[in-house]
């Protein structure tokens, strides 16, 4: 009986049969089963559903983002460990522990997961937690869309992990250049998993970008002009502009690649009028702004942290804003530097090379401004501040190698070598990862009402920093020796010690990640002694520290009126006691399950397309669209906390 109408192109041959993937394919469902069992045993399903899954509270959505990002960080690190385990031994006649196909899927998954499901996830998590509080808002502009964004992100993440169990992932690198990712060379479901995992998460990101752009423009507290916003809010504003301009390019590009693959079209094929070079241009027209999308919020975070712990207002606020906006513009005219070696003319290469270097100017200025924020300050070397120190050291090194890569004549000698790999890990780990961990430490009390253990945080920073140097400095040298990226096997025995040291580096970074997890577990255990009763554990400067920890559901009992840049700091300095404004009713969005349902529909549709199960693709699409229409017809989306209830709550506490 022909069941292909039902199962599409599914067949048993897609089950994993190689030891490494087999272990993951058995281990992951077991872990998931364990989690399900635990939730059932502790009777937490109702709580999980009502308090978290259906929640439209930005802070809770933010915490869920951070949870997923942390899990995926561990997955991405496991991938990295596999890659370096392979390269430490697979020289000459020796073969590594993994076969080529697994190795190629692992490095593709490592890049994809680290960028889309760790960095992007952590970024949206932190923005959700901190941004509304910082601008004196009760919520984001579109709370329900926020839930849709998050669940699309989760579904994208799940697709990329499900591929491990059934079908395999892309083996074409994290940006999947055609023709390698095209039908001719890669007909299997792996590339489709990759496409749809990114497509769905990408649409979620785009919606979030719009959401926070509108939130910043429309929901600021009265008196908070743009130039009185905390610098983190500025960095998010600039980032959301980048997201709104860049992510549609990703969506369109992936859609065209998918049409090539499923409908046999010819956008990016080598024949039939297609042109793979167009794909390379388009994917980087998204991809370059993407790295700034990740790093600009981190810049905002560093600005807040250094000002708070130096107990001094940020140096050169206006310059910092100007630098952010400048970086935003320039980040759109540098994409070609990712492929100087594709054969464009000298004028084109020179233009993009110079534009790339120009970005180093505002970035350098930001570093000087941070340093002069420390100057004549009273610096408390907390864990967040240690992460900041590691950032300046590491990111500056990455900037130097970035300028080297920006000179086209030099790029021809190091492009696609391990020098390039070392460079982008240098800026992404130094800039993005350190920044987001610093922010997690900084805002943790606001999320949970207790601080993270300082000492373990510093231990984690130490391991990350040392591990980074061990893992990536050898790669710079290997690049100069001719080692190219993505090698599962090589012949030159001279490279072995470098790869072994790099492998040790990954282990040390892994210890840093373990220290981070231990820090969280230990702090939860010791939450009584680490409790934050004041709501302002760091003697902070911005509005989020003016409310109790953890922040109440409605953020602010009364919306603050802003008169100064660091409003909360100013308020504490001036010591004036203002009359408590009268309490008013607060309207908040009701929890709803429709966000999850839309995302599940999108996930089913994607799964249907990946496996050519067209009925499922149709069904999923219908579920998603009908749910959205259903939601738009629902007028009863808010609940009210009355002034009387608020008064009662205050009374009960004091």
């Amino acid at each position, binding site marked *: 009986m022909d069941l292909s109408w039902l199962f599409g192109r599914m067949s048993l041959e897609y089950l994993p049969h190689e030891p490494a993937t087999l272990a993951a394919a058995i281990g992951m469902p077991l872990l998931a089963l364990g989690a399900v069992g635990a939730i059932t045993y502790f009777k937490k399903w109702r709580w999980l559903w009502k308090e978290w899954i259906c929640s439209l509270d930005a802070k809770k959505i933010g915490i869920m983002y951070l949870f997923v990002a942390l899990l995926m960080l561990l997955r991405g690190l496991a991938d990295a460990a596999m890659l370096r385990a392979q390269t430490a031994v697979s020289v000459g006649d020796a073969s590594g522990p993994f076969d080529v196909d697994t190795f190629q899927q692992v490095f593709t998954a490592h890049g994809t997961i680290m960028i889309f499901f760790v960095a992007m996830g952590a970024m949206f998590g932190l923005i959700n937690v901190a941004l509304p509080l910082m601008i004196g808002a009760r919520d984001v502009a579109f709370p329900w869309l926020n839930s849709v964004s998050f669940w699309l992100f989760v579904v994208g993440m799940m697709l990329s992990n499900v591929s491990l169990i059934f079908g395999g992932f892309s083996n074409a690198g994290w940006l999947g250049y055609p023709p*390698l990712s095209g039908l001719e060379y890669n007909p299997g479901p792996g590339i489709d998993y990759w496409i749809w995992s990114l497509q769905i998460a990408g649409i979620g990101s785009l919606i979030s970008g719009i959401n926070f752009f509108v939130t910043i423009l429309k929901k600021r507290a009265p008196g908070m002009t743009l130039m009185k916003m905390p610098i983190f809010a500025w960095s998010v504003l600039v980032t959301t502009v980048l997201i709104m301009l860049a992510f549609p390019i990703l969506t369109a590009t992936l859609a065209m690649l998918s049409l090539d693959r499923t409908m046999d079209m010819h956008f990016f094929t080598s024949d039939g009028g297609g042109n793979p070079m167009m794909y390379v241009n388009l994917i980087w027209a998204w991809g370059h702004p993407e790295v700034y999308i990740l790093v600009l919020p981190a810049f905002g975070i560093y600005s807040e942290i250094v000002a708070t712990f130096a107990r001094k*207002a940020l*140096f050169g606020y206006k310059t910092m804003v100007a630098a952010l906006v400048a970086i935003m513009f320039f980040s759109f005219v540098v994409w070609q530097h990712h492929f100087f070696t594709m054969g464009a003319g000298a004028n084109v290469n020179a233009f993009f090379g110079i534009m790339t270097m*120009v970005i180093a100017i505002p970035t*350098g200025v930001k570093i000087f401004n941070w340093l002069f924020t420390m*100057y004549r*300050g009273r*610096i408390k070397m907390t864990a967040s501040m240690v992460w900041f120190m590691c950032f300046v050291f590491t990111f500056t090194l990455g900037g130097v190698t970035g*300028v080297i890569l920006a000179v086209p004549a030099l790029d021809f000698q190091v492009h696609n070598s391990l020098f390039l790999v070392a460079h982008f890990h240098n800026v992404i780990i130094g800039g993005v990862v350190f920044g987001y961990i610093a922010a997690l430490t900084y805002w943790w009390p606001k999320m949970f009402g207790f601080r993270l253990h300082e000492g373990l945080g510093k231990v984690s920073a130490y391991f990350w920093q040392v591990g980074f140097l061990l893992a990536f400095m050898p790669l710079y*040298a290997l690049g100069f020796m001719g080692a190219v990226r993505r090698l599962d096997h090589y012949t030159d025995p001279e490279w072995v010690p470098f790869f072994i040291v790099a492998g040790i580096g990954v282990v040390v970074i892994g210890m840093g990640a373990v220290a981070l997890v231990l820090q969280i577990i230990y702090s939860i255990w010791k939450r009584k002694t680490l409790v934050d009763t004041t709501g302002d554990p760091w003697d902070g400067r911005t509005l989020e520290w003016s409310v109790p920890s953890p922040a109440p559901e409605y953020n602010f009992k009364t919306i603050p009126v802003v008169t100064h840049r660091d409003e909360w700091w100013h308020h504490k300095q001036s010591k004036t006691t203002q009359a408590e404004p009268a309490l008013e009713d607060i309207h908040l969005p009701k929890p709803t399950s429709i966000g999850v349902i839309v995302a599940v529909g999108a996930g089913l549709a994607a799964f249907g397309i990946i496996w050519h199960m067209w009925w499922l693709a149709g069904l999923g699409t219908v579920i998603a669209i009908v749910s959205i229409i259903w939601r738009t017809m629902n007028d009863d989306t808010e609940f009210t906390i009355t002034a009387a209830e608020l008064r009662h709550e205050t009374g009960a506490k004091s």
Partner: protein
Amino acid sequence: MTMKRFLLASIIPLTLTGLVAIGWWLLNGVDMDVLNPSGDIALQQRRILFITLVLAAIVVIPVFAMLIGFAWRYRHTNKKARYDANWTDNKWLEIVWWGIPIAIIGFLAVLTWQTSHSLDPYRAIESDKETVEIQVVALQWKWLFIYPEEGIVTVNHIVVPEKTPLHFTLTADAPMSAFWVPSLGSQIYAMNGMTSQLNLIADHTGVFDGYNTNINGKGYSSMQFTVESKTNRNYESWIKRTKSSAGFNQDTYASLAKPSTEGVKTAYRLTDASIFDTIVGKYMHGMQENKEEMNVEAPMENHDMKSHDMHSMEGH
């Protein structure tokens, strides 16, 4: 100072010493192709590398010094240091740190503009010697080299005369690949249905490793090749020897083009001069029916091919 404080304070210097020792152990006696090049192009690139590093150091060294200096001087336990919570603007300082990077980048921009032209991979190398033409085809997963003027074909191995300009014309019959010989300098992509170009020169004799830098499938790691630079006399005699090898025609190509990593370093005598144009041309119109007409229309294909060359699109 208590024991605990002493131990804590010594962590950073100890770690740094350890890292430097590891670096020393790794780098001792290692020969790096990029830093110790054998061709003029790579030599010029190394010079730019050093200039860029020195320029970067002008900014990086003060940044590191200030980072450590300020963090130590203004630690919150040091009550002697001046604390000025509202000192947040200084026009002159800002002019300095906008100005210095602008000056450095301005200098680098000029260098970039000049070297983008002087080291443009498409730019022919000036010499009184006649340029050796080599056509390169990236296959899954081996490199095919065609010497159209000498009538020779090699696999995964090129022999070149020293001190003689080499002009490579590259294409692929495989996913996007890239050709790189770090000892000689500059890499370039090789892509289906179009050609790219690269000019290199070897300054002395020797054997240099070459790599594919762009992933093009399962056998990607095996796409290494060697470049053997010989004296003119030895090169000529190699050509003469190779001329008596087995012939290379469309059939030989068809079996070589099948995906495999068993690229043995072999050499053939070229019997079908149109083979490179055929490989480029087979993607041109994309329609399978056209395949048979291709050889007949080779000269026209050649014309078309040039219009697909990215470089000529920009009016070079």
